[in-house]
């Protein structure tokens, strides 16, 4: 009985995002006059680190309020707040559901597991037979920089986030970040600037959850421009952190 009720609530909890008031449907069963509406539960869930090698533990930390029943998918029922260590075998989205008299609330945390994928579904393998180089070119974007700068702009940060997501899909890939500069300025100073750019991309990638051991850096200064016209649009294309497969 309890199990069934729980299932109903789960369905309601999922539907709550789409249909407001779902949680109120059991209310008519209560014969007395309704008490003041109970406060809705809140929930938060985080994982640390967000990215691990296969076999490494991850600390899940959560907290909820106004909940009587807290459940983490794959872990089971837990206290209202707490921490627990888990060891996911593959990239997993942990889903916490907090239920209380005031309704229910969900929170999720994504953990990316890197390392050889044990048994990828055959269909998926068949779907993506591209070489690492082809895949990288199609999924990972260059990170661009301002003039004489190795700072990660908000736009560059969005590129970094997208790249970390993409690189999580092919966790066997190791990348080299090439730091490039535009043609202006001195050869040696640009080598140092390219070094700073590559290092900035690397630290932004690791901050976003990518394992540092997958990343190498090299500076090319202004030695290998991808665009050779003397124009600002061309210079902008050359001020970049470029991703290649580490050989």
């Amino acid at each position, binding site marked *: 009985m309890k199990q069934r009720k729980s299932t109903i609530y789960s369905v309601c909890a999922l539907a709550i995002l789409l249909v407001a008031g779902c949680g109120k449907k059991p209310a008519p069963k209560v014969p007395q006059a309704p008490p003041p509406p109970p406060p809705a539960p809140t929930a938060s869930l985080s994982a640390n680190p967000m990215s691990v090698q296969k076999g490494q533990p991850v600390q899940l930390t959560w907290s909820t309020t106004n909940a009587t029943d807290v459940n983490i998918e794959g872990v089971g029922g837990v206290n209202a707040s707490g921490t627990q260590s888990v060891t996911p075998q593959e990239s997993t989205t942990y889903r916490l559901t907090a239920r209380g008299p005031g309704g229910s609330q969900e929170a999720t945390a994504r953990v990316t597991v890197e390392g050889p994928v044990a048994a990828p579904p055959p269909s998926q393998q068949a779907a993506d037979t591209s070489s690492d180089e082809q895949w990288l070119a199609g999924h990972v974007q260059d990170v661009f920089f301002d003039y*004489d700068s190795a700072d990660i702009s908000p736009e560059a940060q969005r590129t970094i986030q997208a790249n970390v997501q993409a690189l999580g899909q092919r966790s066997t890939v190791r990348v080299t970040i090439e730091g490039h500069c535009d043609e202006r300025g001195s050869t*040696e100073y640009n*080598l*140092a600037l390219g070094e700073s750019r590559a290092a900035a991309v690397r630290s932004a990638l690791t901050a976003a959850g990518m394992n540092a051991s997958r990343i190498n850096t090299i500076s090319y200064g202004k030695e290998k421009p991808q665009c050779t016209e003397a124009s600002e649009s061309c210079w902008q294309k050359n001020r970049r952190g470029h991703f290649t497969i580490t050989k």
Partner: protein
Amino acid sequence: MRRSSMKIGSMKTAVLILFLAFHAAAQTDWIRTGTGLGVEKVRIAAPDFKASTGDAANAPLIKVFNETLFNDLESSGILDVVSKSFYPLQTPGSPAEIQLDAWGNPPPNAAMVAFGNLGKQGDDLAMQGWLFDVKNPQSPQVLGKQYRETATEDNARLIAHRFANEIIMRLGGGVAGIFESKIVFVSSRTGHKEIWIMDYDGAGQKQLTHLGSISLSPRISPDNSRIAYSTFGKRGIELSMYSLELGRNVSFPHFSGTNISPAWSADGTKIAWSSSMRGDPEIFIADGNGASPKRVTANKGRNLAPAWNPKTGSQIAFVSGRTGLPQLYVMETDGTNVQRMTETGYAVSPSWSPNGQFLTFAWRRNYGPGAPGAQDIYIMDIASKQWVQLTHSGGTNDYPSWSPDGRHIVFESTRGGSTQIWTMLADGSQQKQLTFGGHNQQPNWSFK
């Protein structure tokens, strides 16, 4: 607040105007490199040396010798070489043939005459040369020299350089001539950037490395035995060491990250360079063989391009991006007493004068996106921080490197469209292109 900043602004303007006025007036006055540049030049005639034998192979050797000697004397910066069109019809091949009056009076009006003879004797080229003081008829001979080498054009050039060095030693205040010095540089003429070497006048250009990678920033050791340079490897930019004696690379420690801009101490026992082995590009100093590297700078921002004070060995000029665009700094070799030398623009590539008094460097004084103006070569008096612009011909000019006599500077320039190597006197005069094929860059003049 606004008033005070305006005040500072107008003060700055006033100081700038004063400085510019002083600068314009003093530009040609203060530049005393202590090397005889700018003092009255000795007027010298150098008639073609005569053939001493009847060998059929003499002509090309004598031609090379005469051209080389004349060019050396003209390039010296301390001589006023009389144009050959003013010479008497009778030129001397030996002391017995010289008529001093004919050289000392107008039109040649020379104070000195360099003359002599050479020719092939068997397999050898033998040369006899003299330097006569025209105004001292009692005892005119200042110099008399004989040379003998295997008869090749390279040796004809070598003999001319040696004789010219002797003349400069006598007439240039005891500072040795630079005519046997070398310039190492980067050339892409094979399709890859490799390390090359040439004579001071651009003759004898020769490829040293054949790595097929990108090699940069060659710096020749003070004893001319080795060249430190950077090369792109699989995992970063490494320092490499080429032995001129063995004709190949010799082993050098691997440092991780980006390792660039090596520089030798004048005694050859130390190398300074920029490395990112511990994070940000910082300046390190190690022994000449790469042992026991120590970090000297430690701040956020890029530090690179060290240049030792060759006079004291206790100071290093370098480039830092710690405040934004790269500026020039000077510090002690232990990293203390850091002094900023440039305040504006984009200043890079310092080289220290042999007498320790000046820096030469590349500077774009008004640098920034969309800002006009070229990058030019400057020299700065270190004590007063006064500077003089030496190039004005457009293009991007970079990598100045001082000659051993302090009278010349070699540099790269894009003024002709491609990047080529040029020399000039340290007052900016006599700018001359040395390389022509492909792109040639980052010249470094040997210590001797």
